[in-house]
């Protein structure tokens, strides 16, 4: 399959990023690195917020988050995602929805 640049899609969206206060956090980075084989968040997240790094670490940047909740639901074995909605008025602001 061709490489798809999701950033180009996210670029069309409107966001009010809550700088320095990510609404989703990986609870324990070691769990992703050592205990999670699948790292399915790195391909299921529709905004590609989770990246698989070369050293088996998973990093998370929530700026492009679409607030769907998938990452929290699929992390059922490890429950390693601390998931909240952004503070009021922040995050994705759909123009059309």
């Amino acid at each position, binding site marked *: 399959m*061709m490489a798809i640049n999701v950033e180009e899609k996210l670029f069309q969206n409107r966001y009010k990023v809550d700088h320095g206060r990510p609404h989703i956090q990986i609870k324990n980075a070691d769990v992703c690195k050592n205990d999670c084989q699948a790292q399915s968040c790195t391909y299921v997240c529709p905004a590609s917020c989770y990246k698989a790094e070369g050293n088996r670490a998973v990093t998370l940047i929530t700026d492009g988050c679409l607030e769907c909740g998938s990452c929290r639901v699929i992390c059922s074995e490890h429950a390693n995602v601390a998931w909240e909605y952004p503070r009021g008025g922040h995050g994705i602001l759909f123009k059309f929805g």
Partner: protein
Amino acid sequence: MAQEKFDAIVVGAGPSGNTAAYTLAKAGLKVLQIERGEYPGSKNVQGAILYADALERVIPDFRDDAPLERHVIEQRVWVLDDNSFVGTHYRSDDYNKPPYNRYTIIRAQFDKWFSSKVREAGALLICETTVEELLMDGQRCIGVRCDRQGGEVYADVVILADGVNSTLARKAGFHGELDAGNVALAVKEILFMPEEVIQARFNIKEEEGVVIELMGTVTEGMVGTGFLYTNKDSLTIGVGCMLGDFKNNPKRSTPYGLLEKLKKHPSIAPLIEGGEMKEYAAHLIPEGGFHAVPQVYGDGWMIVGDSGGFVNAVHREGSNLAMTTGRLAAETVIAAKAAGQPLSARTLRAYKQALDASFVMKDLHKYRDMPQVLHTSPQFFTTYPQLVTGAAKKMFTVDGVDKKTKEREIFGSFRAARRISGLVGDAFKLWRAFR
């Protein structure tokens, strides 16, 4: 947000929350509605089709000023393989006679309109405010805590219209985490193009609309469907699959990768060509059906809409169930207040009884086995689409082979793929789940 007490707090301003708040405010109750978006609609995602009936029951004259895109006169169902489709189209001029039965809508605009009606009815709306948790007094919900200073607000009942993630009920321990096998993850884009182009491509006139539901190899064997809807001067195209299937897909495909594949399909690409993409969205859809509906009422709280899993996945209905559950919850509160009853679990049980007596639980019950059947039968989403398109190609290609031989080959292809027992079993499973 001082120490003011409300009759009801409604969390969320989507279809269920707006219907609940509207109904309560119309009856003269003191209602506070809290929305985390910049304005109602700015956090909400839907295909989106509006079914008139559920809205008509609360706002009979909604057609006068609601922002509606096109009324739907034609429904297409396409079964795709990688480069062809077999489809059924149903188009009727009866759908062109007002009052129209269903419309395409753009949710950010529609929800904003609906919210204006809620405020006209007398509810107090606060936006840009996220409710962090419910305030409990033992088993009893007495209010909410918001992410504002002094953000504790009290009410006799809190109606949770906070969407599929159902964050507040989960935190309060009313129900557990969603199961990846019970929710679909859908992604979509909106593509703008001139009205005339849409009308020419879909063979429709001004204000007329077409919806196409898609299934087949585009979902790579995962249980899921796609859609293409006509708005006034835009198209909405999307694809969704069960979240558990995304997770377990050995190809580790991305949702946006599937969407790109769908957009490039030779039967789809000409319809969307030249469209200017202006937004990309993702959303979970609760598709667990009857068996996944949690406890939806308790002492001082009720759950409506997606937060309670009220979606009929088989018929692609959700917003009408959301509006209906919002209305029934509100009517339960209004009746209890009028009778001077406390809003305890005992009183609010009437909400569940009303749901059971309505199409909402009747339809979910009718299809109660469907999620299980579909989710364990991926052949319906890959093997059969390929068999059907293959059969059509064989029958419609004129190449000197006689039709009897073609028939034998087609039957042979079905038997080879599923065996006789599999074919019969699949038919039986579907019949049982649909009956």
